[in-house]
């Protein structure tokens, strides 16, 4: 990668801002991993690949809700942007089955909904 000039920095900023519409982010800081975020991430990645879904599965840092780790934020078209907490492998499967494919929110795991 060549060294950036200030103009290239701005261009990179603009081009990187065009994000995918559908994504899942898993909080992968020490706190999240200790609570099992890596397992949830693995399930989510595998399921998305297996079903050929157009959803980007990414990692991110800690969103601060320690009491609800592991945290998974989901943005899917036609659905509100939701943060699920206490996501074990079973819930990770449910996120793909119910939320991503079935477009239904999952009971008892919602810890935040982003207002539009």
């Amino acid at each position: 990668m060549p060294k950036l000039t200030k103009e290239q920095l701005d261009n990179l900023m603009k081009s990187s801002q065009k994000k995918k519409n559908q994504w899942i982010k898993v909080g992968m800081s020490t706190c999240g991993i200790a609570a099992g975020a890596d397992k949830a991430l693995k399930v989510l990645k595998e399921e998305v690949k297996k079903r050929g879904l157009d959803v980007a599965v990414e990692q991110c840092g800690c969103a601060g809700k320690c009491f609800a780790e592991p945290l998974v934020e989901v943005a899917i078209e036609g659905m509100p942007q939701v943060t699920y907490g206490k996501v074990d492998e079973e819930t990770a499967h449910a996120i793909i089955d119910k939320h991503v494919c079935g477009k239904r929110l999952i009971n008892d795991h919602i810890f935040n909904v982003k207002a539009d």
Partner: protein
Amino acid sequence: MGFKYKKIVLLKDTDMDKGTKEFYKIFLEALRAKNLQEEVQVVRAADIGIYKKGIVIKILPDNLIYTNLKKENIEDIIEKTIKKNKLIKELLFENEDKQLRIVLRNCGVIDPENINDYIASEGYQGLKKVLFKYNPEKVVDELKLSGLRGRGGGGFPTWMKWNFAKGVEADQKYIICNADEGDPGAYMDRSVLEGDPHSVIEGMIIAGFTIGANEGYLYIRAEYPLAIERIKIALEQAREYGLLGKKILGSGFDFDLEIRLGAGAFVCGEETALIASIEGKRGCPVPRPPYPSIKGLWGKPTVINNVETLANIPVIFNKGGKWFSGIGTENAKGTKVFALTGKVKNSSLIEVPMGITIREIVFDIGGGVIDDREIKAVQTGGPSGGVIPADYLDTKVDYENLTKLGSIMGSGGMIVMDDTDCMVDIAQFYMGFCVDESCGKCSPCRIGTYQMLGYLKKITEGKATEEDIQKLERICFATQKASLCGLGQTAPNPILSTLRYFRDEYLEHVNDKKCRAGKCIDLIQYKIDQDKCKRCSICARNCPVNAISGDFKEGLVIDQAKCIKCGKCFEVCKFNAIKRG
């Protein structure tokens, strides 16, 4: 985006957890009766961000919140709000988000291992502005305007530190990031390093440009392997993009960073000890002045800033010092990150504007005390801080207010304590920590902390007299005055502040040989109240040392010689038949 459902209703009983399911069922039935189940989705939320407001619903996409709902309201909600988009004013609740994320702006949002994510969220824009539009004087002026003060605990104005180092003529200067976070229960810096490493790096480059340093060090404790890994990745990516190295972004400024690992000594968070540690010496503090900004690493002018302070810098220069100074109070600008832990329902990492009250933090953000017990105190500042009793929960958080109360802002640990926490025991815990972590260089700290711990132990064992409390206080004052560095000078704070607000508890330990919280095991005894005992023997089955004998016929008794006072029987008894006294 358009919703698949016309409405989504999130539902939560904020008073008790079991109530949610019942209300959910009734709501679902009501929708079905009106044949709306395909248009409206009802979902049980685990947390809705509102506490002690009965049954709460949030209706999307309108983002309406109704609180304190009764079954009788359902009909109205469906007919008016869901069908006709009409507000029901009596139920409406205006919720305001008490948090404001500046330092944590990217944590949990961007991928920390991808520099493009950081750049997309306006990363390195502050640096660009500084390199091409500012000179060092202008940077200092802007920082002064922002009012930013050190977030490591001391609260020293950041612009002053930078200005001192800038003013000294030297062939080499250094920037150090202090990431040797050591307070028990504090993890603010770790989260920033793991979630947004580039913001710290950008802050350090700006600091380097300002004081005229070309080299910097990130001093990270070795106990944070993931933080170290993410910083390493971030440094490599920044170098690839030319954001570190020669001629940054095509300007004439060179700067690079290296990582140094701390070996786990608490004292290395003190700046002179930290410098000694980087130099390869034993991590012991040296007297100040000269301050590091004049004579620091290898005798050269050095600015040492904490992780959180540095993470503020990019935003200040991107959005302007004036914008930053509009947040917070008169003397404390911006926000503070706290690691809210202890007996609080929602342990969390929060960022709040300065000037918020402790009550708002604990009850509105933290959701209150676990099991709704009574809050006794809040501890801030770790082993250098003190306790703030429940009477002062409405204190506005800033540096001066917390110091006035005998505690400190500290680096951001905030531990909630309830009536089962013994204040003498708390003081003893922190003093034990200080004894372990005292470097031993100066005798007031080395001997003082040890002696103080001895007296606290005597008190918790019920062997002390009132005179011992006076002696303890005298050692506290001596250690405060005579210690070389901050560790020793502040080590007595947990004792002094608990004595200030909870002297009666100390006296109870000494005179009545009683620990009201039931924490000091030498002062408590468990007995079975034979009148209340139903002889179910659940206590005997749960006792880890088989100290409870007897059966349904004879009744049960605790053998005091065998009992280790773990309190298991007390917890498991369903009839309150175990007495602690």
